């Protein structure tokens, strides 16, 4: 070892350790992993037993939209986020391209999945806002239940001006779904009416007519009879942890169901409707008329395919899922309105496509949304993909005109046609859906619904499991909401 002067050594040491620290910092600040373009892979055969085909991309029988020629725009890419599998969007985006080829020339849409359920996606959005808003998509789908929260948080801009030309055309309910405090804050894409999907053959076998069920007791009796005559089957499914949308579906039947008033006073404990809802759920499970599996659990779809579930009291969005779950039950499913005693209301009111206030491409995003959901050509194309009714009158009229003449398009695969709703249910299914939209009532969500719901669920589930009495469950719900949320109208 050379004899080195200590002074130089110290300098050297400082230099070296600075280098070391610097290297550490550099290593830490390594450039982000190269983002591979999230290009959508070609639709693949899915990995589900009792095969289901991918949602078909049904090219419309309509001529391409004759919109006023769009001025040549700069190539723009927008991100569109929803929940569920991202591959689900592929046919949607392709169809949009076919319906509006001029727009598709400059507009590219990238699909992003925010998680398995809507609640997961909302979490992503909240956390992305805390991270400064960069991670937010341009467009995100959301259920009405989330609109007050995101509007209050400033994530949804005021679109009243942009929406003016379309206002007169919206069906009743659609406007409600997209509004917050008198302003229009999103594009309504779905009005989720309550639809009763049922196995015609199994109901006939048990001698049940859906229209004849008028009271809760009628439903219970029907359920018992159903299981007797169809021993391998149950009239519906409901687990001891009911899906989140059940709560709103039932509660929206009535008018005075706010959890709290604007001053922050909680009203849950003494609300007869809340206790009725809890009670109904418990009875359905205790009596044993329901197949005990959660919606969206990994057991659910196989149960449907195996014929264990005889009907769904659910929202109109289910139209496109049943064919995918059970393609070989074509023509066996019918649609009806919910039983009279819970006919009114909706499942979370509806969905919107929200344009993020942070988006750098708001105009392009609005164009995409209004094309797809507010213009009749797009609305009909959307319907062909998803079975979801148009939210505009012109869309509904255009659809009604077309339905009688609809055939399998020449370039559609047989397997895709087999699960196309119009083929699967028969040509008149839309009549029921339009009818159901007339009974839509919207639950008065406040901006803390996402915190209220788990508390409500927790106590309802405890009541169902017998761990709490009804009084305790109501009391507990109110107490917890009070202590954990405070005033639900404040963020």
């Amino acid at each position, binding site marked *: 070892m050379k*004899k080195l002067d200590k*002074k130089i050594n110290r300098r050297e040491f400082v230099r070296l350790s600075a280098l070391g620290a610097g290297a550490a910092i550099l290593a830490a600040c390594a450039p982000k992993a190269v983002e591979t373009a999230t290009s959508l892979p070609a639709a693949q055969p899915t990995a589900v037993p009792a095969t289901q085909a991918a949602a078909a991309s049904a090219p419309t029988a309509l001529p391409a939209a004759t919109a006023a020629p769009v001025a040549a725009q700069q190539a723009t890419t927008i991100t569109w986020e929803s929940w569920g599998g991202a591959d689900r969007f592929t046919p949607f985006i392709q169809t949009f391209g076919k319906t509006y080829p001029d727009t598709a020339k400059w507009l590219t849409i990238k699909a992003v999945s925010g998680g398995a359920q809507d609640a*997961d996606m909302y979490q992503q959005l*909240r956390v992305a806002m805390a991270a*400064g808003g960069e991670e937010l998509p341009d467009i995100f789908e959301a259920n009405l239940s989330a609109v007050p929260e995101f509007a209050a948080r400033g994530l949804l801009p005021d679109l009243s001006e942009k929406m003016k030309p379309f206002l007169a055309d919206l069906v009743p309910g659609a406007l409600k779904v997209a509004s917050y405090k008198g302003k229009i804050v999103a594009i309504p894409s779905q009005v989720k009416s309550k639809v009763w999907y049922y196995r015609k053959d199994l109901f006939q076998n048990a001698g049940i007519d859906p229209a004849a069920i008028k009271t809760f007791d009628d439903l219970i009796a029907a359920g018992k009879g159903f299981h007797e005559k169809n021993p391998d089957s149950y009239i519906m499914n409901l687990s001891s*942890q009911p899906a989140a949308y059940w709560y709103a579906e039932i509660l929206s039947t009535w008018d005075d169901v706010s959890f709290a008033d604007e001053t922050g006073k909680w009203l849950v404990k003494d609300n007869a409707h809340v206790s009725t809802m809890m009670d109904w759920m418990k009875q359905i499970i205790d009596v044993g008329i329901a197949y005990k599996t959660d919606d969206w659990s990994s057991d659910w779809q196989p149960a449907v395919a195996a014929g264990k579930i005889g009907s769904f009291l659910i929202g109109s969005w289910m139209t496109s899922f049943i064919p995918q779950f059970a393609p070989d039950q074509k023509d066996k499913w019918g649609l009806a309105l919910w039983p009279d005693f819970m006919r009114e209301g909706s499942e979370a009111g509806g969905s919107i496509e929200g344009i993020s206030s942070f988006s750098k491409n708001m105009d392009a995003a609005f164009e995409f949304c209004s094309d797809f959901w507010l213009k009749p050509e797009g609305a009909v194309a959307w319907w062909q993909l998803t079975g979801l009714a148009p939210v505009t009158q012109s869309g509904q009229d255009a659809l009604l005109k077309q339905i009688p003449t609809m055939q399998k398009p020449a370039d559609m695969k047989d397997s895709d046609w087999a699960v196309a709703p119009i083929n699967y249910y028969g040509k008149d299914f839309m009549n029921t859906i339009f009818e159901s939209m007339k009974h839509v009532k919207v639950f008065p969500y406040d901006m803390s619904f996402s915190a209220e719901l788990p508390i409500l669920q927790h106590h309802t589930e405890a009541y169902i499991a017998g761990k709490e009495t009804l009084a305790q469950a109501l009391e507990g719900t109110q107490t*917890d909401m009070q202590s*954990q949320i405070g005033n639900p109208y404040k*963020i």
Partner: protein
Amino acid sequence: MTVTISMSADKTGIKSQNKLRKKMRGDSLVPYLFISPFLIFFLGLFLGPAFYSLYLSFFRYAGYGASTWVGLGNYLAVLEYPVFWTEIWNTVFYWFAHAVPMMVVAFGLAVLVNSKLVRFKNIFKPLIFMPQIIATVVAALVFQNFFGTQYGILNRILGTEIPWLTDMNLARWVIVALLIWRGLGYWFVIFLAGLTSINPEVMEAATIDGVSVWQRLAYVTIPLMRSSLLFAFVVDGIVTMRLFAEPNVLVGKAGALASVEVAPVVNLVIENIRSARFGMAAATGWSLFILIAAISWFQFRLFQQEEDK
């Protein structure tokens, strides 16, 4: 540190005196220089955020926009929240339910493997340790596949449809099983090392005097290992307070959180963050800390007692 002054330095003259003084002052900076990278990162990445979390816990804050002072409001809300206490109970349950059998079995295995009865130590040792190599998440996923209701391996073998993971009363025991399965190897190896470190003469003495195996175990081995056992149990407890991956990956659906009935306390922290309630999340975390501090204090006292013996 002994300052080794180079013998070749010129000691005469003021210049060299100054040089020497400078060197000594310069030298006394050295340890600080060695520590500073660690310390700087530590302050910035750990202590800083820790204090910021503490600060946050007194506010209602969504991570952006306005924040509202609530004082101890968050803490009160946490302590009033039945879900918090359910999850604390769950976490403590997981600690005891897995640690007790695991320590007993790990210790027993260590005794067996250490004993003269067994050859092939070098095969059994890595075999028993192997689960530690498997990542937590991977282990939880394999268990999920094994205990699935409709498509699980165990149910297929038994021909049943037992809802191992959907009935929360069963699910909590599956979680315990996972914790035991994975943790066994770790403590086994530690106990084994502890056993081999026991003075062999002590063991021989016990053997020659005609003492039976069981008696030797009870009166010699265990007392000697007592402090290690207690220490291990409490350390395991502190680690278990941080439990998150196992219950959620095992019972939660595709990345979602597990239901409250089987959730550990950390779930509440994460849930609050996902609901953009950072103040509440921080308060929950610090409430958990108080619990951990209590356990650590208890461990410290225990250790002192053992040391004193």
